């Protein structure tokens, strides 16, 4: 029923979704850094992800490596087209990644690495949002290569998705920190969370409304009957989730908002998928056109079937080991 390219399109979409969710709250903590008190609050916030950030980021490597392996043509076109935002993302990730270690090794210059953590997280997220927007709006291809210029990615839409993702990750980070921390730090995040949620909801709504007007093809997909009927649960569910998050935040339930916020991300992501499929480079290259031969995809599928359950198991184990609230000033004791 499903051929190998479709299976791999699904697996890669899943890998990127897991990345967005996991590194989303992780990067979000960095974006929220200026709102936290210097010293102990920031240390506690960082400690909530210190044991898992590296694993979270590995999903991004799987996304890149998997795209190269399964859809080499798409990988080569997308990376050339989005050269600037991809490299900007990498530079951001460098600064925030090393800050996890450097911050503790050099207390005299904690400020520098606080800034590195914030700036790196912000740059990486903004760039990812731009990549997303530039990807959705379409990429110019001739033959087997990107045929546009090195600033084609820069449009009002891509800047807008960049900003939306910054607030989105910050919101996810806030929900995570509410779940993982206590005291003043948690209070500060509760205060931030409602305005953040409002902004995220407005921005996501605008992106959702804007997307169909990028191309008649996307417009048709969303607004033609009977698809409109099948797809209408997506925005309805999103509104429902947002309401549940609001209620739980009001009730000061520390543990509910985070998984609900993840749900909101999953829905937005599904909406994107609906706008993009069956393209792997929007409106230029389809999944089938870009797919590596079955001898590549089949060989990799064996690896995915063996390793993905193991990875999910020990990643889950690691989260379980470091479960519970992180107390300020005393790390994981």
């Amino acid at each position, binding site marked *: 029923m499903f051929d190998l390219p479709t299976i791999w399109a699904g697996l890669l979409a899943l890998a990127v979704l897991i990345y967005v969710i996991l590194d989303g709250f992780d990067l979000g903590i960095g974006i929220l850094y200026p709102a936290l008190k210097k010293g102990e609050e920031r*240390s506690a916030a*960082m400690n909530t992800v*210190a*044991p898992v950030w*590296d*694993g979270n*980021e*590995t999903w991004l*490597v*799987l996304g*890149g*490596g998997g795209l*190269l*392996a*399964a859809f*080499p*043509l798409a*990988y*080569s*076109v*997308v*990376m*050339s087209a989005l*050269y*600037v935002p*991809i*490299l900007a993302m*990498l*530079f951001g*990730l*460098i600064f925030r*990644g*090393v800050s996890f*270690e*450097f911050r*503790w*090794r*050099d*207390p005299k210059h904690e400020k520098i690495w606080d800034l590195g953590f914030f700036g790196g997280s912000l740059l990486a997220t903004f760039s990812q949002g731009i990549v997303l927007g530039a990807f959705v709006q379409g990429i110019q291809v001739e033959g087997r*290569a*990107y045929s546009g*210029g*090195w600033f084609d990615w820069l449009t009002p839409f891509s800047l807008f998705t960049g900003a939306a993702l910054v607030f989105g990750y910050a919101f996810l980070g806030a929900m995570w920190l509410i779940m993982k921390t206590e005291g003043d730090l948690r209070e500060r995040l509760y205060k931030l969370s409602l305005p953040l949620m409002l902004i995220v909801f407005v921005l996501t709504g605008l992106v959702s409304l804007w997307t169909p007007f990028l191309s008649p093809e996307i417009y048709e997909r969303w607004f033609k009957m009977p698809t409109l009927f099948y797809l209408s649960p997506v925005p309805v569910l999103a509104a429902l989730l947002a309401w549940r998050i609001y209620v739980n935040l009001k009730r000061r339930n520390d543990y509910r908002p985070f998984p609900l916020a993840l749900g909101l991300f999953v829905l937005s992501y599904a909406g994107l998928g609906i706008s993009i499929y069956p393209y792997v480079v929007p409106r230029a290259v389809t999944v089938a056109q870009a797919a*590596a*031969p079955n001898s*590549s995809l089949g*060989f*990799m599928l064996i*690896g*995915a079937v063996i*390793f993905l359950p193991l*990875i999910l198991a*020990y*990643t889950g184990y*690691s989260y379980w*080991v*470091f479960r519970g609230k992180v107390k300020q000033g005393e*790390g*994981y*004791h």
Partner: protein
Amino acid sequence: MDSVDTLALLLARLQFSFTIGVHILFPSFTIGLASYLAVLEGLWLKTGKQVYIRLFKYWIKIFAVVFAMGVVSGIVMSYEFGTNWSVFSDKTGPVLGPLLAYEVLSAFFLEAGFLGIMLFGLNKVGKKLHFMATLMVAIGTFFSAFWILSANSWMQTPAGYSINEVGQFVPENWVEIIFNPSFPYRLVHMVIAAYLTTAFVVGAVAAWHLLRDKTCEGAKVMFSMAMWMAAIVAPIQIFVGDMHGLNTLEHQPAKVAAMEGHFETQKGAPLILFGWPDMEAEETKYAVEIPKLGSLILTHHADGEIVGLKAFPKEDRPNAPIVFWSFRIMVGLGTLMALVGFWSLWLRWRKKLYTASLFHKISLLMGPTGFIAVLAGWTVTEVGRQPYTVYGLLRTSQSVGPVEAPAIATSLAVFAVVYFVVFGFGIYYILRMMGAAPTPGQSPIASDHPIGLDSVMSTQASKEEQ
């Protein structure tokens, strides 16, 4: 090809060699250090001696910093194939992509998944599970080396593929692809190189502290372990390197001709010790040579025939001076390492290993040699593969993507600045940590690591001492 394209190609090559050259330094160290940490923790569990856990605590902080730098510089690599070498990615993706995907699935996740427990989880999971986490990280570094070296070796000695109608390499036989002809040699050579690199860093740190305090127990234990490694493994590396060279002679004779500085194909070729291979004049100038020895080493016959660079069209030759001199740097340092190893055996036998100041000073100087040898060795094999990315099949000039020169120039400049600043700080922190003596109660650097491995281990230590 017009001049702008040539410039873009040059810049893309510079950017790749710079970013991969910086990156390789970190895994060279972490592959060895992960194994060393596993050995230290294993010895602690087995003997209960405090010195082992103290050394474990000492090196794991350094490991964490090096590992973080390896991760962030490595993510760059996984995207740079596409940003700068998109034609190469499109053509080789069906073969190399799955190898990299296996690296991510079997190695990167394993390392990352257990690193958190290794760094912060001792009090959460107990000693035995913690040891298992350390082992998983060490095994992960090895799996990573396995897959990435398989991919690199396939570019050197491609096998098990066919070429489809759009010019992509398509896998036909995965066993032949993974275990391509140069892979076993390159894998063993590189893993040993990583172990030696780590041994000489550990030896240098130990020597530094022995020079200040000959009674420092931690330094003595480290020094002894490092020197055993040097004495046993450096000679093995020379042997493995020779076999790797013979394999290269079989599959990439032009690379060996450049390494040896031979332009003429000749029987009974000399071994050129030093000289300047002049690509224009097609001769190695100022050569200091030993007659017949070149043939003897490469063919094991005094009159064996060795192919020279002139046997290849000019446009198919690698840059001889770079390959020639990088090779000499690598071999020279490898020989020095073996000599230091032998010297340590003699001192050990005379019971002077911990008191010989001159030897400690030399060991200190030897500290960075592993890194230099690794860079030199990779320069030999990568520059020696030129002008191809996939040897004999895909030219480097036909691998580069459509990105314009100004974009690459800008990113190269940013890479240079960011790497020097970020990794400069990192190396400074590492050196500072190494400057602290591995003695109880010493922690001049900020040791209050977020999730307090220190305090956990010191409580455990005091419990055990009671």
